[in-house]
């Protein structure tokens, strides 16, 4: 294990700051490149979509930079482009996230455009209709794309009747039904300073950051009216559903219970997941499915942590004739890992990888800003980055067994397949 990297992965110079008007932010100062990167999250994303109107939050996100304050969409976009200011918003299930990147020389304009986007979006009718048309075209483009088909069906089966069962981007029908009033109302309910988390990275001092954050967010109202979302567990375990699609390769999505990032057993579950199907060429699924049998190009698992649900989620794709074999291998590997656990050597190596590679996620200002904003959003504490590698290093076989019990459990999976699998 790399002691140096472990120690250095702790950005000890994260500065917590509170602006004069009380906007809370974390910042990291770095003068290497004359730019500043900002990331932030407003709580309440697609889970706040009105019933039958899935896709409203995503449309809201796409409309924030389509005209604001005195500037109609074309003028607003020209002002961004003229100074190469990069501004974007995305809707996740639990938050609408924003990202700003600018050369520091253009900070005045960049922060003013950001203020207008969050505080005074226009939602002009022509912009709403354009974004609706683009969203629908995007949905149609992916409608029969096998990965997309399998994923949509998986979520529908996993979380029936719950907002998480709906795609963030909605459907052609639901997006067609969204009204301008829906968007205005969602903006009023979620874009407030009450639950805002901001991270700022770059060549900018604390005093200036405080002043600029007040300018951008200080005028937002303080309360947010997020509709409570029910906690939900993944449903449909033990079921296998097939969506027929005329393609030579089947896409497979599978899932079972997981643990939320805030759960004390999350880190052991994360280590366990690394052994099973984490992002290195050494995982058991990668070795058994890809290396040994040539069943698939990609295979892996990850822990999905939403505000109100958690799961272990996996993916692969194999030709129709080998789907049964592929599933057998995956099920057997999960059963074996649950029954016997990883070997001590495997556990040590997984911990070494996870601690050693943590720093790799912090090598650009934008990446750092997004990591910080996410950690703040999850309420993990400003010292999380410093503590995180110690948490990983402390994981024992007992912890792994407990995590396996709580996640992989009896090994029953919800499986969604898109394609024309043979012999199931």
């Amino acid at each position, binding site marked *: 294990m790399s002691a140096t990297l472990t120690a250095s992965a702790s950005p000890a110079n994260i500065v917590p700051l509170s602006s004069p008007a009380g906007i809370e932010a974390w910042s990291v100062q770095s003068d290497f*490149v004359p730019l500043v990167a900002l990331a932030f999250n407003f709580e309440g994303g697609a889970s706040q979509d009105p019933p039958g109107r899935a896709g409203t939050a995503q449309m809201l996100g796409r409309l924030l930079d389509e005209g604001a304050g005195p500037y109609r969409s074309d003028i607003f976009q020209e002002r961004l482009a*003229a100074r190469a200011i990069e501004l974007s918003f995305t809707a996740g299930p639990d938050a609408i996230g924003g990202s700003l990147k600018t050369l520091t020389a253009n900070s005045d304009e960049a922060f003013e455009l950001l203020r207008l986007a969050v505080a005074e979006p226009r939602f002009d009718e022509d912009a709403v209709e354009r974004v609706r048309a683009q969203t629908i075209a995007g949905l149609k483009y992916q409608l029969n794309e096998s990965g997309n088909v399998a994923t949509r069906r998986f979520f529908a089966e996993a979380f029936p009747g719950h907002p998480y069962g709906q795609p963030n981007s909605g459907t052609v029908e639901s997006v067609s039904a969204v009204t301008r009033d829906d968007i205005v109302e969602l903006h009023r309910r979620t874009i407030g300073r009450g639950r805002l988390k901001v991270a700022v990275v770059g060549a900018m001092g604390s005093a200036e950051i405080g002043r600029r954050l007040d300018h951008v967010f200080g005028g937002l109202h303080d309360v947010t009216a997020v509709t409570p979302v029910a906690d939900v567990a993944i449903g449909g375990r033990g079921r296998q559903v097939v969506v027929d699609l005329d393609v030579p390769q089947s896409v497979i999505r599978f899932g079972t219970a997981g643990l939320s990032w805030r759960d004390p057993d999350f880190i052991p579950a994360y280590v366990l997941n690394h052994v099973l199907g984490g992002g290195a060429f050494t995982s058991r699924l990668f070795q058994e499915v890809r290396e040994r049998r*040539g069943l698939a*190009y990609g295979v892996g698992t990850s822990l999905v942590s939403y505000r109100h649900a958690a799961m272990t989620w996996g993916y692969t794709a194999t030709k129709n004739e080998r789907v049964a074999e592929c599933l057998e291998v995956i099920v057997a590997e999960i059963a074996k890992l649950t029954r016997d656990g990883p070997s001590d050597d495997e556990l040590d190596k997984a911990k070494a990888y996870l601690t050693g590679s943590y720093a790799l996620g912090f090598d650009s200002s934008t990446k750092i800003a997004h990591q910080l904003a996410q950690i703040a959003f999850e309420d993990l504490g400003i010292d999380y980055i410093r503590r995180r590698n110690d948490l990983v290093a402390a994981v024992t076989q007992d912890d792994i067994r407990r995590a396996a019990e709580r996640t992989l459990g009896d090994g029953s999976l919800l499986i969604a397949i898109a394609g024309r699998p043979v012999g199931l």
Partner: protein
Amino acid sequence: MGDSAGLRTGTSGTPRLDGSGGPDLSCTTLDNGLEIVVIPDRRVPVVTHMVWYRNGSADDPLGQSGIAHFLEHLMFKGTELHPAGEFSKVVSALGGQENAFTSYDYTAYFQRVAPEHLGRMMEFEADRMGGLNFDEAVVAPERDVVLEERRMRVETDPPSQLSEAMSASLFVHHPYGIPIIGWMHEIETLNRGHALDYYRRFYAPDNAILVVAGDVAPPETVPRPERTYGRNTPHAGSAGRSRPREPEPRAARLVSVADAKVEQPTLQRLYLVPSSRTATGRENYALEVLAEVLGGGPTSYLYRNLVLDAGAAVNAGAWYMGSAIDETRFAVYAVPAEGRSPQALEADLDRAVSAAASGIDEDMMERAKTRLIAETIYSLDSQSSLARIYGSALAVGETLEEVRRWPDEIRAVTRDDLRQVAERYLVPRRSVTGYLLREPG
């Protein structure tokens, strides 16, 4: 490295703020011909170690399409000294990440690790530059992996099938028309002999570039590449790339893919244009600016015309693949609005493209240049981006000086330059038009 080293505030190597400076890099060449570029970035204790080979899919022997890419997969299958998977296990146990990729003109391998492990990465990478040796038993499963990769990327995806068909049509003679991953029926026949023949032809220090980006100063801590790569034997003379030249195009071509799975039709267009290596004068820089002005985002000429003004499309854009050894692609595309066909949209697109040369004003030019030049400053924020920019440039035969001068060259492009390249190259006889259509199921 101290406890606050995680996000070190920069002191050395601060780039010039106007973007014309670029990073503070150094370069050398070993006696065996290996070119080495070092790009310091001391903010985080991470180093990116990349080896680029000056061969890609366009150098695949006739009938063996996909061999460059298949070999890239087999490069993870062991050497005389290290059994299959050992390199990957070591990278992983050191907390590193690794991967590789194949393009038309180059193949590259990389690891991202803590600086103290750089020496070991060099040992392993130098070892597989000359010592590749894998069992026959790994070949068939790995070929299946590549076949699954092709099924995933192309066989299940009508838009990719259109894109393949358009390239195959644009390049009537040059291997840029053959997919990087290879044709299905040829991948199925690739074997160990093909891979090793190809390997022996191209994998040597005098056909490679080493790029090290990241926390590599001070100099005395940098492992000396002579001790690892220096031991690799060069080929007697360069392996050389021998590729046929495209004939002068005469025919406007139209291809279409119709599939019952298509719900959203699209319109695509490719033009055969000069690359950074074949351009005369400032043509390639003019084409970069032209692509940005025409189709770089929501302020672009095509988006304005087709989406905002005419309402004929819901999206439109353009791109230029300037970094290439031989004549290359310039693309424009549009997604028709509800109820419109690609055929109907094509007339609008043609009008917009031919009007662009005269319709582009100074403001649009300035915006496009600002964005292109800002990109070079933004890229200084990511050592992986820098490693890729320099590695790919050298691999296609551009010089470091050309990379350094890029922002100045972009700045110097005039409206007249744009008009000239548009009139010369964005013409029907140099083009392939593609329709993605719904076939009633």
